[in-house]
């Protein structure tokens, strides 16, 4: 199994969710995140004083998938989250040793 983690632009969440659902993903976890990449931050002005805000708000989407699906899920996710402009985010995967469904106690791929 693998954990697919994506950091995306907040307004792309619906596109990503719909694309993943139609691929067959059963669930995902979303959390608010902030950070910067090449996009860097932006400048705000309050009563004439300029503030550079380094951290840009993003969403972190996490999906647990079977090994065989991992590269397809990444592809679907990238396609759905893409705007082509700087700041679209990143997607990466890491191996997962075990997964347990809390309700039933099932382990491994059955718990996905």
């Amino acid at each position, binding site marked *: 199994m693998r954990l697919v983690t994506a950091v995306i632009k907040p307004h792309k969440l619906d596109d990503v969710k719909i694309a993943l659902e139609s691929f067959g993903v059963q669930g995902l976890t979303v959390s608010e995140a902030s950070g910067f990449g090449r996009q860097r931050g932006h400048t*705000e*002005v*309050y*009563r*004439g*004083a*300029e*503030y*550079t*805000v380094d951290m840009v708000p993003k969403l972190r989407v996490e999906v647990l998938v079977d090994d065989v699906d991992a590269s397809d899920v990444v592809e679907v996710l990238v396609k759905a989250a893409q705007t082509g402009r700087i700041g679209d985010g990143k997607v990466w995967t890491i191996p997962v040793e075990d997964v347990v469904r809390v309700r039933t106690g099932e382990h491994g791929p059955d718990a996905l």
Partner: protein
Amino acid sequence: MVPLQSAVEAAPLDSGITAWMLVSASLVLLMTPGVALFYGGMVRTKSVLNMMMMSFGAMGVVGIVYVLWGWSMSYSSESVGGVFGNPFTNFGLAGAITDSVGEYILSDGLPVVVDVGFQVTFAIITVALISGAIADRARFGTWLVFTGLWVTFAYFPMAHMVWGGGLLSGDGPFASIAEPIDFAGGTVVHINAGMAALVLALVVGRRKGFGKEVMRPHNLPLVMLGAALLWFGWFGFNAGSAYAADGVAGLAWVNTTTATCAAILGWLLVERIRDGHATSLGAASGIVAGLVAITPAAGALSPVGAIALGLVAGGLSALAVGLKYKLGYDDSLDVVGVHLVAGLWGTVAIGFLATDTGLLYGGGGAQLVVQVLIALVAVAVSGVVTLVLAMLLKVTMGWRVTEDVEVAGIDQAVHAESGYDYGSSASGAFSPGSRRSTTQEVPA
């Protein structure tokens, strides 16, 4: 304002005036929660409650002080050298609101007790305005003591001098040049509060990180809501200061609005040219700058004159708020740039724009001279009194919370609360009833 003891046998009760003044008093009282929102939105998340509590705390202290000795010091018939009224003459409003047979004392058709209510609200808002200069860092207890002392030694004397028949009124020495005009409180309220803010910011000192860290407003919709409530309440402040439901009140209402409209544009124009963006904080600040500037002038200008006054007020304050970074004083929410600068402008501009006596209306320079004089006296009185009180409190109670508390956020340490609950992830134990709070010392 109304001379007090002339009353009993004069005009009978005027229910129209009385009704309007009760409404006006209520409107002006609403301004202080309005200031709390205006300032509260401008600070960071970690200190929003303390910022708002400085206004609400001022309401608690000043409302009581006013009834006990504030009215007597402002308007009692026993003036001490034209500087303040004897605080004991009408202590606790004794002898001020009813006569010997228990009838309500009237002054030009208005029961004096209604005037007391109206005046309480002015004293409260004036001291609340100062709080923005020392956001995020002041001990709450010290602030509460300051509010009581400051209204006693700075506000009540100014109110007496300008409105209570004292040195700066039509009965004072300047009146031989021209009668000083301060319709609703340019000197008593705004120069007074703005100068106190400057002194307090200097005595209390800068916030940690001032001029280096990002200290942006955490909730601008709150700021705009506060500005809207201030504008609404200001109708009581200015139109109520006509002490009548008549044409002068109507003129003050219209002038208050047009000056404020123009000040929004004045502020935004400066921002657009200087910074490239017209901001919502600029619009909200322009509203307050316009309201401040028209306050002393509301009954003396034409509506077109009010447009000119407001336009300049907005632009001037937009330029003035940058001074603190150049000069290095941390007037955190720009009480100086808005209230002192626009208050001075409004008071002095009467000398140019008053339709009866202004320089631009062919009235000569006498009014202008007098307006400059009363503005300078207000600056001096407020500056000296505030300096003495602030230094006294600095060496006795102390002004600052610890640096750890300031960094972690004053709300949790001082009030044991958080302004916002961002989610359900907070876990812990609950204990009904009071355990003496353990959050007095917050780790950095």
